[in-house]
């Protein structure tokens, strides 16, 4: 937020320093989740906006889901199809490649972010242009494509309203569906007034902070860019294997602009995004809109099968990206995370996400899906990635909401085990086994257990005269009690009460 643009040779507004991408060569510099969360919790405005957003969307989602009589069956079909795809991914990708090529698209393969960016930059440069319009897409954020293009002197213009607010605000998305939800209307007005004119059509004079007026300013600002764009870049919600069709689901129509007006279109697609047949579309077109924006159907969905004479881009590229997905695929207990259709239902229902927001997760994928997907894709080496699977209370709300039934809590526990094993393996002194010695002793016999209970209530009785909760405790309990209140132990345990009132009868 402190970059001075007048001395910067950049083409687009600079994002904040650091990286939230996946698969970049440099190690991820983000501190662990707990530190991030603490900082984010200071931001009351963001917390208020987020609570409003997540509550509204998740309540509406329940309404929309209740309208579908066979919702559970559709979910099961979606989960099964996604498993089928994952377990036979090589077969489906080969079929997709064949049919995309037959339809006239050029198919490329990228092992990692760096290679994907190299391919994309190469295509854009070969068209002799220095700007592209792009649709909001998780995978292009994951590979941090905008910055790679910027480094090559190419401006990538975000065209989704929220992404435009984020880009012009030198900011990062805080939610995968409504990325600028941490900004209120006044902040949006300020960002537009300060930045828009530097990058194209300025906002009207004395613009109010009314959302329709702000959206109108964005429409005018971007219209000019759409009309002159020669290259468009998109992600894809689905690539249909048996027809070679690419599918994009969106709301604003900026997607349609990017897919229709440029001469060249590049679609960047995670390898897991293929679906077997055109018939299967019915399952996902029922699941996705109701689970994401809580609508019966999103305003616009576009599908194209190769090029069409006289209609839309005459040159199509599809870049399939691995970038850590095959790492996730290799873990039979973790691979179902790849079922994800990026609807954000798990985020909107997560009590942790609602409080800390997307910025705390140090990854483009926040919330419940983020904490199982990021460490699988990126590995469990950095402080942030090791801490992510702990950003959960295991309340299981996410698993209930997920339209493709990803067992998120099971995978969280599985990853925690992996991290604990790794720690053991790395020979760091480890707290848990040490704590477990006295715990074992305590549970070994009823006498031991009673002794501990009595000791605890006695200690609590003397130390906690006026409060119901234990506050932060000294080490070794400090890491645990820093963020949690423990109810004070009762003056009398159930065992003591039973003995007194029932005379020890069994």
């Amino acid at each position, binding site marked *: 937020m402190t970059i001075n643009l007048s001395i910067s040779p950049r083409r687009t507004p600079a994002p904040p320093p650091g990286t939230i991408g996946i698969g970049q060569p440099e190690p991820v510099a983000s501190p662990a989740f707990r530190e991030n969360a603490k900082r984010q919790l200071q931001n009351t405005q963001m917390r208020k906006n987020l609570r409003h957003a997540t509550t509204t969307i998740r309540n509406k989602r329940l309404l929309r889901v209740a309208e579908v009589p066979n919702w559970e*069956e559709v979910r099961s079909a979606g989960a099964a199809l996604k498993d089928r795809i994952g377990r036979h991914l090589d077969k489906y990708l080969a079929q997709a490649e064949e049919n995309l090529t037959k339809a006239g698209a050029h198919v490329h393969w990228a092992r990692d972010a760096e290679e994907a960016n190299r391919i994309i930059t190469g295509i854009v440069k070969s068209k002799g242009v220095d700007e592209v319009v792009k649709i909001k897409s998780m995978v292009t954020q994951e590979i941090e494509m905008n910055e790679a293009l910027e480094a090559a002197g190419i401006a990538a213009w975000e065209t989704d309203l929220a992404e435009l607010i984020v880009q012009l605000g030198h900011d990062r998305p805080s939610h995968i569906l*409504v990325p600028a939800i941490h900004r209120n209307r006044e902040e949006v007005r300020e960002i537009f007034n300060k930045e828009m004119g530097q990058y194209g059509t300025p906002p009207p004079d004395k613009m109010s902070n009314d959302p329709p007026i702000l*959206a109108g300013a964005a429409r005018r600002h971007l219209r000019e860019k*759409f009309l002159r764009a020669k290259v468009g870049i998109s992600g894809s919600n689905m690539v249909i294997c048996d027809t070679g069709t690419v599918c994009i689901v969106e*709301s604003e129509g900026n997607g349609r602009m990017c897919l229709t007006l440029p001469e060249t279109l590049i679609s960047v697609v995670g390898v897991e995004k293929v679906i077997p047949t055109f018939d299967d579309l019915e399952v996902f077109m*029922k699941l996705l809109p109701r689970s994401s924006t809580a609508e019966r159907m999103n305003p*616009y*969905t576009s599908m194209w099968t190769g090029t069409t004479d*006289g*209609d839309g881009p005459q040159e199509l590229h599809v870049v399939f990206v691995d970038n850590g997905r095959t790492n996730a695929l290799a873990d039979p207990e973790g691979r179902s995370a790849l079922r994800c259709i990026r609807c954000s239902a798990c985020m909107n229902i997560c009590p942790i996400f609602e409080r800390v927001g997307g910025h705390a997760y140090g990854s483009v994928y926040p919330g419940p899906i983020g904490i199982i997907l990021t460490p699988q894709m990126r590995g469990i080496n950095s402080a942030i990635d090791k801490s992510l699977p702990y950003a959960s209370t295991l309340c299981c709300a996410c698993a209930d909401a997920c339209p493709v039934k990803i067992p998120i809590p099971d995978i969280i526990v599985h990853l925690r085990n992996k991290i604990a094993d790794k720690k053991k393996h790395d020979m760091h002194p480890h707290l848990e086994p040490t704590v477990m010695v006295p715990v074992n002793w305590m549970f070994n016999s009823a006498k031991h257990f009673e002794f501990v209970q009595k000791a605890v209530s006695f200690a609590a009785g003397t130390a906690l005269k006026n409060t119901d909760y234990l506050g932060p405790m000294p080490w070794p309990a400090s890491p645990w009690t820093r963020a949690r209140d423990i109810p004070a132990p009762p003056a009398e345990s159930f065992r003591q009460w039973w003995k007194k009132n029932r005379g020890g009868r069994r």
Partner: protein
Amino acid sequence: MSSRDVIFSRIRTALADVPNLEPEQDIPLNWEYGKPLPLPDVLETFVQNCLDYKAEVERVPAAKVPEAITKMLKEHKVRTMVVPAGIDDGWRKAAEKGGVKLIDDDPPKTHQELNEIDAVMTASRVGIADTGTIVLDHVADQGRRALSLVPDLHLCVIRADQVVSDVPEAVQRLKPSVQAGQPLTWISGPSATSDIELSRVEGVHGPRNLLIILAE
């Protein structure tokens, strides 16, 4: 090794535990494709759900379509309208009767030219009652995709026999279009965003007005 080969070999290694079966055998599916949704009144549901998405809807007998076209275009004070080559002659005349100057997309208009035109009129391929959706497959009576995107008002005529109950039926009806290589655009209400404080704004980049005439 090419990147393609590397990725395929990573996938095969990752899936070493998966039995070598046909995918359909490995993960069977308990699902019946193309099933209609039992609705008391498909057409009325379609109309209600389109209205719910802030589209304007006129439900008229087939013979009255021209009349409805004239009326709607007048109400919206449309002055210029681009029309695809295959559009019904009667609809053209009805629009002209409403005082609208028709512009043919022949030779194809530039994006800038389309941006100056008030409206577009198209037919459609399929309507979906449960979701309030119309789907275009961009054949001659609907025109190329840019036509129904750049102008700010889209008037779309759909026949009652094109309206199905739900998404699965629609997908089955759309399959021949996709197999013929046609692009599809699914439209549910006018363009919308909820990006600023989650307050819904109708109309960002796509047409801000969607008018539907349902012909019975």
